[in-house]
């Protein structure tokens, strides 16, 4: 019996965002956009979904006069990511 993969993480863009945030303390929206090569609109929608699930926290602030969106992974998000990796391992062991 295979564990089910978290549907919120089993999407290319959301998984890429979470993977980026796992290795950093926090990241600004333009950096995530640049690294994932996603469009601003699509990325914004996916970030909202992750934020609504409590996987990441989004802080809207200002850098000088420019608006700045900072994303951080939460402990809930980190746990979900770890569980996703564990589930992924069982799938990969079978395909080997």
């Amino acid at each position: 019996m295979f564990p089910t993969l978290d549907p919120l993480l089993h999407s290319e863009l959301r998984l890429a965002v979470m993977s980026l945030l796992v290795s950093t303390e926090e990241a600004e929206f333009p950096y995530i956009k640049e690294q994932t090569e996603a469009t601003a609109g699509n990325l914004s929608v996916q970030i909202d979904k992750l934020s609504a699930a409590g996987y990441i926290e989004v802080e809207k602030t200002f850098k000088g006069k420019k608006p700045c969106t900072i994303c951080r992974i939460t402990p809930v998000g980190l746990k979900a990511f770890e569980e996703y990796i564990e589930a992924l391992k069982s799938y990969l062991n079978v395909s080997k």
Partner: protein
Amino acid sequence: MEENMNMTAERSLEIITQQIAQSRRAVSKVTGQSLFISGICTMCMAVVIAIINFVLINNAIVGVGHLLWLVLPLIIWLFMRKYNKEHAHTPVSLVGSMVAKTWSTFAWFVIGFFVIALIWGFVAARVLPIESYVASRIEVTPVIVLLMGMAITITGHILKQRWLVIFGTAAGLICFIWEHFGMGQTIVLMLSGEPHLSLSAHAATTMLPCLTIFVFALVGLMLPGLMLKRQK
């Protein structure tokens, strides 16, 4: 990147690996840039102080140039601020912040120690007889090189660069012995063949601590910074 929900496990793994590696590279470059800027500033400051000390000793003023070390953290901070403004998108990582905290701890200890030594030297010169003053004077450079060796070693451990760990430990201890026992001064004295230091030989010895710090900044800050910046 689109919202593809029908990914294979292999594709998921590929995305995770790719993003983590990409992020680590970006962060390493920023850490490298910080080390590189700090190294360049320290090396330039060592050269400037050596020149100032060399010029001033001819007017019988010894070591005043070393006061300029107090300005170094400010100069590094200004350059870093300028760089960060131009590269605002790069995130903070655990590795980057650990390296930054190591060096800021080093900077605070050095500034604190430098100020204590300065105040003590000022007070002791006025209160104590000359023999007691010479015996109780706090030598700054040996302690600074020891602290710098520690900071380089810790940086090497964080960045997993074994050569940096070995260099930090060896150079820290060797330069401490070199500076503490005045070996540079002894060598200059032996080479000059005179029982006491002449003015030019004395001028050379006042430049030795700057040379030590220059080498430390080159190998401990600038080169690792360059390595991280160029990492593919």
